[in-house]
């Protein structure tokens, strides 16, 4: 399969993730959408690695995975802390810092 088809698939998945961040009010689902966007970027990296014929793209995708794992740990801990004090995970509730 040509790399273009893989890149188009990655674009579609990235757009779905962006739509999730824009549309969903539940912080956890917005977070999952971010994960989907990171995965789409990873697919593009792996595809580029195959197209160019070197492994640098795969190394970068590996680093993206590590950063995503660290981000999930801290992000979910923050969501837990917010839930503990506000009994809600809706991103609309956390508007205390709004002007």
């Amino acid at each position, binding site marked *: *399969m*040509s*790399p*273009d*088809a*893989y*890149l188009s*698939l990655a*674009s*579609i*998945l*990235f*757009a*779905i*993730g*962006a739509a*999730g961040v*824009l*549309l*969903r*009010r*539940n912080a*956890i*689902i917005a*977070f*999952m*959408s971010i*994960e*989907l966007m990171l*995965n789409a970027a*990873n*697919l*593009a990296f*792996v595809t*580029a*690695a*195959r*197209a160019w*014929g070197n*492994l*640098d793209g*795969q*190394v970068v*995708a*590996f*680093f993206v*995975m*590590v950063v*995503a*794992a*660290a981000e*999930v*740990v801290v992000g*979910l801990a923050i969501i*837990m*802390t917010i*839930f*503990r004090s506000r009994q809600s995970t*809706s991103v*609309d509730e956390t508007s205390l810092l709004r002007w």
Partner: protein
Amino acid sequence: MTFLFWILATLSVIGGLGMLLSRKAVHSALWLALTMMCLAVLYVAQSAVFLGTVQVIVYTGAVMMLFLFVLMLIGVSAADSLRESIRGQRPVAVLVAVALGATLIAAVGNALDFSVGLQAANAEYGGNVQGLAALMFGRYLIAFEATAALLITAALGATILAHRERLFPRQDQRTRSVERFRSGVHPGQRPSPGVYARHNAVDVPALLPDGSAVPDSIPGPLRARGTVREIDATATEEVLDRLVGGAASDTGGER
């Protein structure tokens, strides 16, 4: 290969849309796990064997389980509110997402119309994992070390965020018991509701020896609903008469 790609691409897009459109967060997590599994197979199909394995272990194994853990801690029933907080935000967001997808496909979707293939790169050090290791511990060594620092910082941050200071001393059974007796409220169990010859129901209050009702003997929910039955004075009298009269005649008969 083409067949495999189209099946997996369809499945992963279905998984993404399912995550986007599910009302419940648990369903979203499961749909996302499907997408990640499909992506893992697509990695392997593009001769990224190591990344495919790591995708299954790290994403579907660890990250999605972490998501499910937090969902279970927070409460599965917490459905998303469908109220729009900014008017007209939803159609605009859909429009923006579609436009973003179209732009990305147009801009990046035909950037790589060639494919060198990874056979030579993978064969250079004897395999995909060996080639990745050569890069990771060679040219990308500094980034790899920084990754270690990042992971330790993330673990420390999560520990600090999840930590809770104890503001009050721990309550054990003894202190709770002392507290209960000191509060002045009746510490024992409540009297049971009335059981008479005529009534055997929880909505009838118990009677004190002087004939007055004990409101506390009715269960709280019934009192809140206001479905407590009044004591039928004539019925009580009748039962009392019969009991006393019968007792009198019985004792009279014996004597």
